[in-house]
Each structure stands twice: as C-alpha cells, then as structure tokens.
C-alpha cells in the first residue's frame, strides 16, 4: 500500500521543503521506502536541504523529455541505506516544463516501488502548484501561526478540495514560538484549528537546530536531541498511523524558565 502525498502551503517561506526532507528522512529511518520529488522547477531546494546538490546528473525534466530513464534521475541518500531517494527538478527551466499529466504519470510509476511518494510543491497556486498536486491523493498543508500564512493555507485547502479532489488535508504548524503563544502574541493550536478546521498532523516549535541542520545539509529529524527533531519524529509516526499525543510544549518552556531562574538569568 503506497501513498502519494503533496506538501504544500500557498505562501512561500513557511518550510515546505524542510518539512518534505524531514518527513522523508524520518519515514526512511523507520524502514519505509521513500522517494521525494522536488516539483519546484526553477527554484529547486530539496537538493541543498538534503545535502545532495553535488550529486545531480539528470532531473525530472530530463525524464519527461525522454533523455534518461526515471531510475537514472533518482539519487539515493546513502545515509539511509536503500530507503530514501530524491528526484530533483531542473534549476534552469520554468514551471511550464512539467505538466499535470507528467507528474501523474511519474507518481504512478514510482508508487509501484515505494511506500511513500512525497512531493515538494512550489509556492503559489498557479501552474507549478497544479502540476505538483495532480499526482497526489493526500496533502499536508504547512503553515505558520501568522495571518498571511494562515490566509494562504485556507485558500490552498479550498483549491485542493474543489479542484484537485484531495479531501481532508492535514495541517502542520511550523516555527511555533512558544513564549509568544504564552504571552498571547501568537495564535494557539486551538485558534488555528478554529480558523482552518483541519486535522493537526503536528507542531514544530521554532528551533535554531533546523537552521544548523540545513547549513550542514542533514535533516534535523536525525537528531533526537533537538526539539524540532522530536517533533518531526512524532509527525512521521502519525503518518504511518500511530496515535501519538502532541508533545508537551509548555513543560519545555517551564524547564527553560526554571533553568533561567537557577542560573539567575531573566
């Protein structure tokens, strides 16, 4: 049983690529066979987030033009044995190089060989988005607890349901700033649920470790010592069907507050 999931957001810069990379790596760590497709033609980034930018020979558009076979364009992430592959897209072409039928066709082929096919969708709701969602049957909507990101997420959900026939997309709230939530300056999970009405797949607290991991080209999910890493591990377990409770965000803050008091830093 394989699943084709698109990771989308509407607004740019909320963390689609980071989420795609970490969910893919996390699922691979649990032993699933995973392929990640970068559908952001012209502005690809999944390769750098995964640290595989120097290994690209062929890409998605070469496959579409028949210049190579699908297998030749896929790059294996050696850190995860035989479990994680990435299909890059072209950096020097534009979104018109990949049509809805192209991605439908490629996802159809890949799902024969993988447990999870995960598509990193471009920002926006134009052609690139429409192609990216065409082959998917499920969607993860990434947003931040900010008005612009939430508004765009809502728009994307409407389009997914009405045009792409993808029902019940799941929500990931990225870069939640717990201290801002606690003082009432950032919307809570409950607020987000009220507004968007989506099932919550997970929350990723704002964590510097994500920037550090991306600098190094390794997904933060590998590092269980980090809050973001643990949040991604929980999300991955939920994707494979486990009921994992949300991590206790407040006690983490409580711990840090206590620590600050102990060392007299306030």
């Amino acid at each position, binding site marked *: 049983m394989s699943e084709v999931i698109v990771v989308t957001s509407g607004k740019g810069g909320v963390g689609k690529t980071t989420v795609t990379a970490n969910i893919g790596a996390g699922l691979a760590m649990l032993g699933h066979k995973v392929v990640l497709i970068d559908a952001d033609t012209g502005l690809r980034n999944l390769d750098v987030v995964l640290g595989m930018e120097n290994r690209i020979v062929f890409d998605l558009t070469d496959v579409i033009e028949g210049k190579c076979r699908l297998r030749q364009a896929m790059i294996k992430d050696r850190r995860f044995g035989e479990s994680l592959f990435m299909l890059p897209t072209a950096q020097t072409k534009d979104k018109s190089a990949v049509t809805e039928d192209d991605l439908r066709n490629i996802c159809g082929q890949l799902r024969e060989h993988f447990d999870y096919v995960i598509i990193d969708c471009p920002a926006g709701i134009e052609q690139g988005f429409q192609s990216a969602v065409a082959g998917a049957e499920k969607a993860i909507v990434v947003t931040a607890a900010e*008005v612009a990101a939430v508004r765009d997420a809502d728009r994307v959900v409407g389009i997914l349901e009405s045009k792409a026939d993808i029902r019940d997309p799941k929500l990931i709230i990225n870069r939640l700033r717990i201290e801002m939530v606690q003082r*009432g300056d950032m919307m809570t999970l409950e607020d987000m649920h009220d507004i968007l009405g989506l099932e919550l797949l997970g929350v990723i607290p704002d964590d510097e470790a994500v920037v550090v991991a991306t600098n190094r080209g390794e997904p933060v999910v590998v590092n269980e010592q980090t809050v973001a890493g643990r949040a991604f591990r929980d999300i991955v377990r939920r994707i494979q069907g486990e009921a994992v409770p949300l991590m*206790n965000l*407040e006690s983490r803050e409580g711990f840090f507050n206590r620590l600050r008091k102990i060392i007299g830093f306030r």
Partner: protein
Amino acid sequence: MLDFLARLLGRESPGSKNIAKERLRLVLIHDRADISPQLLQLLKNEIVAVISKYMEIDDKGLEVSLEHVDKQVALVANIPIRKMKRVANI
C-alpha cells in the same frame, strides 16, 4: 482534546493574537465566499431598494453581512422596520 490544548497554550489574554484571529476570521469569510466588500455593498443597496418599496426601513440600523458557520457561509441581514406601507410605491 481541544480543551486540553486550550489549557496547554490558549489561556485567554489581551495579546495581539486575538486581533489576528478576529481579522483572519473576517478575511476568510470573504475569501471563501469569493465576494468582495464592494460587491457586498452593491447587494446591500439593492436589498434596501427592494424592501423600501414595501416597508419603511431604518437604513442606519441596517446590517448585511456574511457569516461563517462550520464550513458554510450564510448571508445574514438585520433590517429594522419603521412602518409598513399600505400602498406599494412602484
């Protein structure tokens, strides 16, 4: 679950998040209904014009808005009537 989350994070507070939530609520009603404030104003004017033929209404107390309930949008009009007309003024 939501109560738990509310206790976890959502203590009511005077912070700016309530402003964000309220603004989003209004914006999304219009986004989802695909109707602009200008269009709503035109609709309001026409409703007033039609109803005014039959009854005298208080157009200062008049409210027409789109409201969002679950996943549906409703057009809600609150139109105070001053008095009924006996003869249609057509």
